[in-house]
């Protein structure tokens, strides 16, 4: 190997003598901490209401991570993602209620159907960029919620429809405490799978096409196919989550697929931090707790919530978790990474 002395690069070469930091080295700690929180939280939760809040946070977090794969990592904005959540929820509800299917096959069928729809949509809209993509996905979500509201014979219309509990092999999940473990486990599994994906060559390809589609395609990445794949993946995860949460809450209405829900997911991703798994969890915690904390301040809740969004985005524009991470690192708290750059 030949080396060329180059005065424009003043740094000594000793920094490469240490191990080259792979992305996976900090994962184990994070995962252990998450698992510990999930495992120990029940000791602190006084009653079923708090379990319910925790469950809803987990649902938001999984949904947020699914959207973050698409938005934060791959750079494709979606303002209609709640639509897929709604498709999953209603798919399960309609198949179990009107056709007497068992919950698990219904869940799988709803997810499969959503995947097919997402695939068809992605093929046409992922050619769009920026705000045009935002508009198209926004439209998609709104169309889904309008259809769910109008087809009253199947969906109960705007008032919604009841959904049976989730049972498998004769066992029925009941009560917030049982469901807590389902959604807690689901969250941990999602974090593991999502991190695996991000740290893999496939994940790198997704992030590359976010950074530069031209560079990605020249490097041999089939940009179109990758975008479609991650869109379908993200939509399918949301759909499965929608099915499960429909069985959990026992009642669904078209609002779950609406624009406000989609915006909520985008807020989770952006507030917590684009391209940050733990950012999405943080965003979900905020979005899950804030409405409960502000519940007593009717009228002011909207103002306070708005102020929190604006202030956070002004002072931590990359989202809470990545911005704070950078600050901590540059302050030398973690003692690694900073020296090399």
């Amino acid at each position, binding site marked *: 190997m030949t080396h060329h002395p180059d005065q424009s690069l003043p740094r000594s070469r000793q920094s490469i003598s240490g191990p080259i930091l792979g992305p996976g080295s*900090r994962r184990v*700690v*994070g995962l252990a*901490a*998450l698992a510990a*929180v999930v495992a120990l*939280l029940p000791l*602190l*939760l*006084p*009653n*079923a*209401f*708090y379990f*319910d*809040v925790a469950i*809803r946070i987990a649902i938001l977090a999984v949904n947020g991570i699914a959207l973050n794969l698409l938005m934060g990592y791959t750079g494709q904005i979606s303002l209609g993602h709640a639509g897929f959540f709604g498709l999953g929820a209603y798919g399960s509800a309609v198949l179990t209620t009107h056709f007497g299917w068992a919950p698990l096959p219904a869940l799988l069928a709803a997810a499969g159907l959503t995947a097919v729809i997402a695939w068809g949509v992605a093929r046409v809209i992922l050619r769009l960029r920026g705000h045009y993509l935002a508009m198209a996905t926004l439209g998609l979500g709104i169309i889904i919620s309008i259809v769910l*509201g*109008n087809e*009253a014979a199947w969906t109960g*219309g*705007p*008032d*919604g429809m*009841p959904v049976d509990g989730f049972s498998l092999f004769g066992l029925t999940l009941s009560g917030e405490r049982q469901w807590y473990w389902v959604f807690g486990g689901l969250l941990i599994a999602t974090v593991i799978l999502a991190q695996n994906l991000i740290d893999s060559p496939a994940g790198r390809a997704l992030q590359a096409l976010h950074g530069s589609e031209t560079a990605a395609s020249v490097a041999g990445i089939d940009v179109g196919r990758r975008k479609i794949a991650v869109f379908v993946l993200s939509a399918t995860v949301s759909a499965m989550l929608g099915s499960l949460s429909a069985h959990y*809450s*026992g*009642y*669904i*209405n078209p*609002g*779950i697929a609406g624009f*406000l829900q989609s915006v909520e997911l985008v807020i989770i991703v952006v507030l917590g931090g684009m391209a940050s798994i*733990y950012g999405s*969890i*943080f965003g979900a*915690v905020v979005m899950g*707790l804030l*409405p*409960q*904390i502000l*519940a*007593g301040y*009717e*009228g002011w*809740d*909207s103002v306070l919530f708005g102020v929190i969004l604006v202030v956070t985005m002004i002072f931590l524009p990359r989202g809470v*978790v990545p911005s*704070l*991470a950078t600050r*901590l690192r540059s302050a030398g*708290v973690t003692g690694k990474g900073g020296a090399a750059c």
Partner: protein
Amino acid sequence: MRFFNMMVGVVCALAIGASAAQAPAADPVKVGAVLSLTGSASSLGDPELKTLEMMVDQTNRAGGLLGRLVELVHYDDGSEPGKANVLAKRLIEDDKVDMLIGGTTTGASMAMYPLIERAQIPFISLAGALVIVEPVKRWMFKPAHHDRMVGQRVMLDMKARGYTSIAMLSDTSGFGQSARKEMLNVAQKVGITVAVDETFNPKDTDVTTQLAKIKNTPGVQALFVVTFGQGAVVVTKNIAQLGIELPHYETSGVATREYIRLAGPAAEGVRLPAPVLMVAADLPDSDPQKKLSVDYVREYESRYQTDVSSFGAYARDAWHIWVNAVTQARSVDKAKVRDFIENTTGLPGTSGMINMSPQDHLGLDISALKIVTVRNGKFAIAD
């Protein structure tokens, strides 16, 4: 990982803080309410809350219930049924309320009901749809006429006046769609043809398109608009704009003075079924509903400096049904109170004489709905 510790800290602090904050100081009777105070149904939820707060004050001023003070814990579901579900859980599990009022909308009430049944707590819904009381749900009651009755009352009036072919314009909200379905059923039963069946979004700023279609359909003898709040105002103004001369019916959902004020002269002659509340002063003194209705209107309007609506009146009746049951049961025991609510008999309310039974969690008959009309900017008993 620091974020993690931080997050854990935040969650724990909030959980603990919140649970400490709600430790009972005294021992009041707790009533929980989930209402739509913002969002599309806020024009319904707002008078409901105002009324409940007034009722709590009245009850406490009169010495409380069973010697205990009454406390109202209320949350806003933002007209999102999904949120109502969480908030109901909060009221039941965390605030530990003794009974629940609310669900301004049918969607919210139905979303809350699975929890109600599991927690076995008496629940009086303020929403309109038939589905709330039919089939009968053990723990859920309803003080207001359901949409099928409203439809029956209107159709009876139409029949009496000789209309057999009508146009219907319903909004796309939960209220409008559930009511539309019932109205179509009733029409078929009483032999009225719905010649035009149009819908509109309650947030629309213009419905002249749908109305022009109705106007140009030959043979239509009357127009029935199925909506509430702002939507009714827009429709009424558009009807005047197009010069549609058809007799114009609305539902009890627009029985508010605000409707008359916003729609102005366009509202003249509109016919609608309403609880007696709106025309209480015109009733004979012997009517058991008269005094309580007049009292309610006077107190509400002097306290809030704003017009009463039938929605507030439903909340008033709900309150009295519960107070009546608790007084008879001499306890707030949930199961006992439920039984006494189910056995409410001969209780006068703004909506009529309430006679419940295990088969009937509404307890009203159609006679309590009066057809009123707008005359000189006021509601008056028609004919």
